[in-house]
């Protein structure tokens, strides 16, 4: 197993190189970072030329990629625009742990991403926990009560939530529970942010402000996952080994949770493992609507200003996470299914 994991990790290295090159080239076509540096005015010609030179944006794409990858401290740059490259570069490159400086705020990319990652994980991990727990409960319940009135109600409800756009659910929930509840004199939820300025950033305040974003993130996924769990559970419950377990007189919880659920959860593990890396990327729509300071908004803000360094940092982090979680999923598979062995 160890050799298998090592082999997968080694295979990932060239893959990451290819991904980074493709993403870098794509980013160059996302817009001109200097276009928005003039604020609401068109950036002055002299400033455009100077900034392109100082920020290294006047170099060919492949040179910019090499600088991003291995740094430019071995080369000299022309900062004063006299045509003579006389100033040594200061970037060390990704391979030496330097992810560069944001074009937007001139802060190190690792700091920019680091400031948001914890907020995103707090929101997304909470939402994922709610999703898995609720989907399991609903899916199993629905499978055990197939075609009953309750199952039909659950089915109808899940389809409604599943087909509801996230932005619509978010704004609907905000207007009902935050705006209108307050207008009607009922206890109400906050509209946006992580806490009230007068109360400060306490755990209670943050939890209180998480309710609507977590609900928004969860409902669609709960609906989808629960349908999936229902169908895999139904399939497992009809298998011979479950019938055998029942015939042996095993307690029902053991039949359902040990024999049926463990086998039914194999495909679910794959789905969850594929979802987990994207938890790092945050939820663009939800974070934007509820003003949650997470990675999704960071990504959107910096893409809109063509900030290659930060966008590359986020995308490469997700790419690495996808590869790592895929390996974890394969290992978990082997643990759940004794028939699978990796060599």
């Amino acid at each position: 197993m160890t050799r298998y994991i090592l082999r997968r990790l080694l295979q990932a290295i060239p893959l990451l190189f290819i991904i980074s090159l493709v993403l870098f080239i794509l980013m160059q076509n996302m817009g001109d970072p200097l276009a928005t540096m003039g604020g609401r005015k068109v950036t002055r010609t002299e400033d455009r030329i100077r900034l392109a030179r100082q920020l290294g944006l006047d170099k060919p794409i492949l040179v910019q990629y090499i600088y991003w990858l291995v740094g430019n401290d071995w080369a000299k740059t022309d900062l004063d625009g006299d045509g003579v490259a006389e100033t040594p570069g200061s970037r060390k490159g990704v391979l030496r742990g330097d992810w560069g400086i944001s074009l937007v705020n001139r802060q190190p990319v690792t700091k920019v991403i680091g400031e948001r990652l914890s907020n995103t994980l707090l929101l997304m991990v909470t939402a994922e926990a709610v999703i898995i727990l609720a989907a399991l409960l609903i899916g199993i319940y629905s499978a055990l009560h197939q075609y009953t009135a309750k199952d039909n109600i659950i089915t109808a409800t899940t389809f409604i939530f599943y087909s509801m756009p996230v932005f619509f659910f978010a704004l609907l929930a905000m207007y009902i529970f935050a705006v209108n509840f307050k207008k009607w004199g009922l206890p109400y939820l906050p509209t946006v942010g992580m806490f009230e300025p007068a109360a400060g950033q306490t755990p209670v305040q943050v939890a209180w402000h998480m309710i609507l974003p977590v609900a928004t993130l969860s409902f669609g996924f709960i609906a989808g996952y629960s349908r999936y769990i229902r169908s895999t559970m139904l399939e497992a419950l009809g298998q011979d080994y479950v019938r055998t377990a029942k015939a042996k007189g095993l307690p029902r919880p053991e039949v359902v949770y040990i024999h049926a659920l463990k086998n039914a959860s194999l495909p679910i593990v794959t789905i969850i493992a594929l979802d987990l890396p994207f938890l790092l990327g945050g939820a663009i729509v939800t974070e934007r609507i509820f003003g949650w300071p997470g990675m999704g908004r960071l990504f959107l803000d910096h893409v809109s200003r063509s900030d290659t360094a930060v966008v590359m940092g986020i995308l490469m982090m997700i790419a690495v996470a996808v590869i790592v979680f895929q390996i974890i999923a394969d290992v978990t598979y082997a643990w759940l299914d004794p028939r699978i062995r990796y060599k």
Partner: protein
Amino acid sequence: MSKYHRLLTWVSILIIASMLLAACGAPQATPEATEAEPPAAQPTEPPAATEAPTEPPAPAEKKVVTLIWTQEFDTLNPLYTQMWFVTALFPVYVCQAWWFDDQNSPIPNLVTEIPSVENGNISEDQRTITLKLRDDIVWSDGTPITSADFKFTYDMLMADSNAVASRSPYDLMESLETPDERTVVVTFPEPYAPWLSSLFSGSSGISIIPAHILQPVFDAEGTIDTAEWNTDPTVGCGPFVFEEWESGSFARFVANDNFWLGRPKLDELFFRFVPDDASMIAALVAGDGDVGTFFAYSDVPQLEEARITILNSFSGFNEGWYINMHPEKGNPALKDVKVRQALAYAFNREKLVQDLLLGLTEVAATDYDRSPWVDPTITPYPYDPDKAKALLAEAGWTDTNGDGTVDKDGIELVLKYGTTNREVRQDTQAVAQQDLAAVGIGTDLQSYDSDLFFSSYAEDGPSANFSLDIIEYSDAPNFPDPDSSVWRCSEIPTDDNPVGVNTSGLCDETLEALFVQQESQVDFKERQQTFYEITRYILDQAYWIGLWQDPDLFGFSDRMIDVKMSGAIPFFNIAEWDVTQ
């Protein structure tokens, strides 16, 4: 039902019920409850010396104003940003030589008086401008502000190792000298007319930075690009001092006790970053914010219903059509002034303003509307589709094949009309398409993300590569100064000058001469007359067709008082803002 089924049912019900209760309950954490939080830091009147008070005085409630800010700051170092959402805050935490009031007139801040020829602070040849500094100005940490801070700011702008946002107009200066601690002398090689709105002043100008904090950083690192002060400017010179900024979430500024014009009336400004327009509106309506801005015109009725006061800040921006006049790449049909005028007559802009913008602004006649630089006799082209048809016919454009679109020499008049994907712009495109079609002008509508749209000629940006016939956006010069580069021949983007900003590609000798003339007219009246000619000429030639005057909309909750707005410096009197108790 088995025991197990019942258990499962109850667990499910419990979870759903707890979620519902969580959503509707927990009143202990509502804003009302938090209002009873600890006492404010605001000093209270001392008790009378003659007798001890029987009860301690009730602590004054901290006056916190929450601003819903749709874009997060990029940096707080004034040298590194041109972002409106930061420059609008300059009067909050930094200082300039002078601000502009609600009449867009300059009011001294760091200087004792506004330089003029009369008071001797502008030389007879109008090349040298002297700033006389007040003697009571201090940074928030108590360090005096001196001419050395001005010199340091200038040096940092011009240092090649600093990738500052703009060097304008400092790269035009001949010298900046500081003969003593209270005097800054700036010399230009030629008289420089726009100095008032750009020399250590103005919304797009530069605020000074503290030499005593940043000089050691520059000495050690050779640059201040990544200085901690840029995102953590705890030493400032505005009525408020930066306190805290959490990325993506909020920023706080607290009252500056050392502010030389007196402590502000508010204790704290809390900026909450909410990028979504609909969420900002919900937050304002729900009372989770006191100030909001940049909302759509269509949101105004809902805000007014929630007793939000709307203030328009006319900051020189006028939305309009730049007509592609590039000699080789422009549409030949648009070279004829009659066709351009037909466009203006054909589009019912008054109806657009009434229907789409709810009558909250007016049709723009020129790119300088709402400024003293427009010939007062100018009025926008009226809506007159018959006149538009007649002009097209005079220019030889008639519908010979009966397909509804006019043609000439076998070519149909279909114009490529592009703008950004801002909602109101896309709506305008749709309305214009109908109106222009009514007189036989076809349109090919295109819209882009703003960073893509405004990309340079070198980046093949649609607004700069002359692929469009009509380019819609709003621009403003260094308001309230009227100087602009967008009509200059030297700014036409080419392979040799791929970053030029004259995106209409127009090089008109008459206009060029007038713009050159105004550059050195320091005398207001003389310059005003030149701009009367400029505005009249652009209107008559229909080089630019105005759509609407584009103010910045601000919404204020009904507890806000003493707020004034300036087009040039929106928050110029923020030290006077207050809230009703």
